[in-house]
């Protein structure tokens, strides 16, 4: 495992860079959005313009931008995400409270998406240019293009209101997770299916599969041992890249199914210009994204020995 340290070290350095970059982008992008946070907090309560100005100074918003940035980056470096202006509570703790339900939803949706997407993709590739391919591809397109707020409502109307199989909203065990995970997973499965279909089709036509077939290996064995293993890598990479999409989709899904989660926290914070919370969610989201992709890369390297040689 001599290659391990160098590879992991470089990847770690890259991860820190990505984190710094997203924290910095979050800071300056939010500074560009119009609207004064102090005014948003106090206007409806009948505060005077002077009182709003006092609050702005209290929040440090009158300090030079560079000073605000340095203070913020240094704090993040120490793991301190600051305090919410709206709630007055530590951002880190607020995010931790919401992280669990979002992770649960994202993981369940990921499983649904991968299983469904892979199945559709493989079916379509193996039965290329038949009605199975058309149907599977059509399903993938539907999944890809149906917004979750719509499919979510349809699912609630059908499974909760009409059939009464599953609860429509809230949390509390696996039953509550089924509908939101299916809805979000279905929309994820579209892009995975397309990727898997292309990969499997390519591998099916490649020399080593022809060779394997020529050696007389049964079709099923060729498919499951050789084709899938070779196709898994790129599919895995797409899935990891889709993690960002998943976090974004979770925002809407959480809202439709009245679940708590990071998404709702972020939306509320954006609406109120609660900048510490928005930045905190961005940084934590970037961290999760980096970790998931790191894991996917390591898994990919393990699955596909060619990669280890290249990177080692």
């Amino acid at each position: 495992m001599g290659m391990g340290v160098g590879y992991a070290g470089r990847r770690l350095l890259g991860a820190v860079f990505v984190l710094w970059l997203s924290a910095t982008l979050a800071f300056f992008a939010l500074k560009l959005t119009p609207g004064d946070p102090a005014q948003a907090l106090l206007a409806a309560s009948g505060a005077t313009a002077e009182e709003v100005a006092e609050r702005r100074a209290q929040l440090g918003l009158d300090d030079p931008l560079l000073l605000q940035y340095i203070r913020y980056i240094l704090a993040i470096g120490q793991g301190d995400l600051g305090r919410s202006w709206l709630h007055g509570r530590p951002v880190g703790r607020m995010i931790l409270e919401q992280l669990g339900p979002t992770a649960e939803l994202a993981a369940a949706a990921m499983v649904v998406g991968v299983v469904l997407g892979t199945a559709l993709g493989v079916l379509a590739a193996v039965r290329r240019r038949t009605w199975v391919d058309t149907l599977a591809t059509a399903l993938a397109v539907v999944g890809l293009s149906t917004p979750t707020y719509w499919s979510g409502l349809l699912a609630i109307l059908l499974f909760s209101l009409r059939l009464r199989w599953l609860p429509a909203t809230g949390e509390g065990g696996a039953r509550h997770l089924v509908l939101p995970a299916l809805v979000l997973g279905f929309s994820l499965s579209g892009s995975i299916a397309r990727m898997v279909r292309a990969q499997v089709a390519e591998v099916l036509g490649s020399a080593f599969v022809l060779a394997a077939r020529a050696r007389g290996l049964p079709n099923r064995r060729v498919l499951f041992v050789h084709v899938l293993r070779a196709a898994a890598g790129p599919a895995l990479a797409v899935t990891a890249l889709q993690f960002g999409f998943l976090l974004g989709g979770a925002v809407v899904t959480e809202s439709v199914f009245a679940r708590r989660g990071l998404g709702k926290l972020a939306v509320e914070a954006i609406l109120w210009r609660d900048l510490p919370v928005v930045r905190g969610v961005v940084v934590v989201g970037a961290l999760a994204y980096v970790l998931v992709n790191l894991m996917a890369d390591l898994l990919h390297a393990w699955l596909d020995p060619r990669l280890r040689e290249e990177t080692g």
Partner: protein
Amino acid sequence: MRRCLFLLLVSAIVLLVSCAPKPEGRIVYGLTLAPSGIDPHVNASSELGIPLTSVYDTLVYQDPATGEFVPGLAERWEVSEDGLIYTFYLKKGVKFHDGTPFNAEAVRFNLDRITSPDLASQKARFMLGPYERTEVVDKYTVRIVLSEPFAPLLGSLSQVYLGMASPTAVEEWGGDYQLHQVGTGPFSFVEYIPGDHLLLRYNPDYAWGPPVYQHRTAQLAEVEFRFFTDPATRSPALETGEADVMGEIPPQDAVRLTESADFRIEAVALPGASLMMFMNTTRPPLDDIRVRQALLYATDRQTIVSTIFRDTSPAAYGPLTAVTFGYDPAVQRYYPYDPEKAAALLAEAGWADSDGDGVLDRDGEPLVLDMVLMGWGYMPEIGQLLAAQWAGLGVAVESRVVSYPEALEIGGSGSHHLLPFTLSDSDPDILRKFFHSQALFNWSLVEDAELDGWLEEAARTSDPARRLALYSQVQQRVMDQALVIPIRDYVNLNGINNRVQGLRFDARGWFPWLIDVTVGGQ
């Protein structure tokens, strides 16, 4: 001796149990706004008061039927001649849920907390107006001292934002107090999982409720609050039984629920400012009063109300909703729907369609108005209908949807033509937030010294008749000057499962009195 004590204890328990049977009912109450911070002294959201009005008691209460203030934690009070000193005589024997006794020190502790700059209060502090300090006279007498008279004070003190919190709990939990709130109310705060649920349990010791409560203790064992931010899911949650009460049901769902045997809609009209479109009086062409009046005559409110709100809320004709104290019905005489009059006014102001493109123009400039909308409160839908109604007259509208902080910035700088807003409150002093020249919501950018004077005097005057007269003048001036296009009065459509009975709301129409709620069999 020990035996004696034991017998005493047993008989006490038997007595207690027979006097106050433990309630068993439980309901799930759906909240609608994005859950923000919920410490009423700190936070400003209106949904926090829905659960917490039952956790905290206030010094006084306002009777929604009469508008009169009645005793709460204060059994009586006096206001000094000059309106600067309010003396409250407190009830004795009141205890917080954690056992801490309630007294004058506790009142001072609460008001000191609210006004402390460190707390960074977003609402409660400003509701106290020209507050100066609180003095403890004796154990059960407390004085609030103002620097100038402030008529809305009792109204403020009757709201949960100025509810009395246990000093012990506040000191113990510090920055995390909002997750561990302790009051003296009919329900105690059990837990709050942000974004998921908030749980209240009945307070068996409650015996000091205001006369507006019908029961001595709560009739439900527990009330669970859950959050339904997506309007489309509210009615399904009610129909699947996942919630028993749900506020802000969308109008089309409300119409459907009314026809169901299992649910009912209780529509509560809220006092405060109506939903109105502010017209920027400083930006041409709206600096011309004839153009502003033309837009008012060209607006068919009845169609808007029936199309978007399915006739569930009344059309508005002035800046206050019809159920607000001080509402002047005279505003209904202004600006009936009259497209011909609108066209005549525009022509008189020099606007004509000289190039035949369907849009009026003057000196080569087309009549295009910049309408800024926010994504909530059906503002985009209203904007769309207004644009369609005005298009017939040759008035073009370019609209954009922005966030609330951005709208505040736009409204303050006056870079809009039209910008709608609505806000609820029980006191007509709310007009000062919109039409005083220094107000943050002065989105009409009006500068009228007389209007400023009336609004300031009305805030200081405690004589109700004088206040009424002043607010009447204000409302008529606002409409005379065509500062706003009132659209509709805010009506909260509460969807309720028929097993739930006895739900009533406070004078603000927004905060439920859960103590009297009962549940029957399914």
